[in-house]
């Protein structure tokens, strides 16, 4: 049970956004522009970064829902998502994405962990300023989302099937603010 009076049976961040839509609409707008807006990173790469950070923060809801979104976007290459999570080499992961994941992992610890050599390594692997900006902001944003979801004890579904549905919706429709209904 969540720590505050959110709508019953609604999972994760959706329940929190329905509790406080005034803040929620900006959170969804941020996710939409960051994960679906213009970027040199593909939507799948951005979901992989988000999932990687969420997993390091032990946020099961965010990890499972964004992993499902990434698998949808990757299609036939969906194994990439699982291999990244399990730290198994996969030749489908570009050197650029590997270097960006290293940076995302440091941002997950703390901003100051990112060193010039991490930036240099990513550039050498083909990352430009925009790749680096978007990677840092995605990792920072999920450092927020993960804390929000777990800090208020929101509902984490245990049925893997629920995440498959969520992943499909996130891949096809993106991040639309949930309907506003008053908490019961």
């Amino acid at each position: 049970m969540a720590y505050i009076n959110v709508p019953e049976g609604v999972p994760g961040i959706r329940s929190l956004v329905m509790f406080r839509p005034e803040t929620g609409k900006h959170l969804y707008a941020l996710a939409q522009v960051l994960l679906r807006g213009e970027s040199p990173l593909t939507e799948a790469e951005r979901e992989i970064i988000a999932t990687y950070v969420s997993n390091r923060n032990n946020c099961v809801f965010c990890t499972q829902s964004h992993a499902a979104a990434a698998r949808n976007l990757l299609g036939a290459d969906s194994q990439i998502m699982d291999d990244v999570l399990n730290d198994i080499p996969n030749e489908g992961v570009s050197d650029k994405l590997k270097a960006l994941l290293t940076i995302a992992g440091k941002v997950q610890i703390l901003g100051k962990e990112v060193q010039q050599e991490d930036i240099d390594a990513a550039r050498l692997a083909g990352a430009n300023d925009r790749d680096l900006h978007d990677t840092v902001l995605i990792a920072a944003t999920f450092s927020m989302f993960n804390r929000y979801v777990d800090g208020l004890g929101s509902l984490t579904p245990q049925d893997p099937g629920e995440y498959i549905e969520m992943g499909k919706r996130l891949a096809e429709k993106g991040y639309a603010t949930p309907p506003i209904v008053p908490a019961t």
Partner: protein
Amino acid sequence: MAHIDLKNEQPGIRGPMAYSPETAKPLNELAEILLRNENNSLTRGERELIGTYVSYLNDCFFCQNVHGAMAGYYMSCDIQEIDAIKRDFTSADLSEKMKALLTIAASVQKGGKFVTAGQIQEAKNKGALDKEIHDTVLIAAAFCLFNRYVDGLGTAAPADHEFYTNRAPMRAADGYIGSVK
């Protein structure tokens, strides 16, 4: 020198925000409603103090000075008093409710799962409403974002404390939405 060419010379978070206005918009709108909107039973000073304390725990120089100056402005206290609260809020002249909320914020800074049912109950016992607990957790989480954005890109921050205290009244009057030109 920031890690990337931000194409502007603005300090702290305003650099990457000016570089990426599409993402700056929801970030500033979030800051505005969380920290400054009047429809809130936590004062502006209390909300800025939560942001300041989390930024201090995350060792983010720019954010803790910007928001420490804001908290000081709203609470009519000087920066030395804010610094003393950051070092030990438990012995500061704050309400018991505020101390319970700062305890929750400190747990959020470590990770969402560090928040305990006991900490939530304690806040409720001291009079905290669900919305106040919600906003405390989201402010603390949002500063875990802002601090990482600022330091993860290696942005520049003025070292002079007066830079921050001088600007606080203007930011208080104008708000966050138009903060990036």
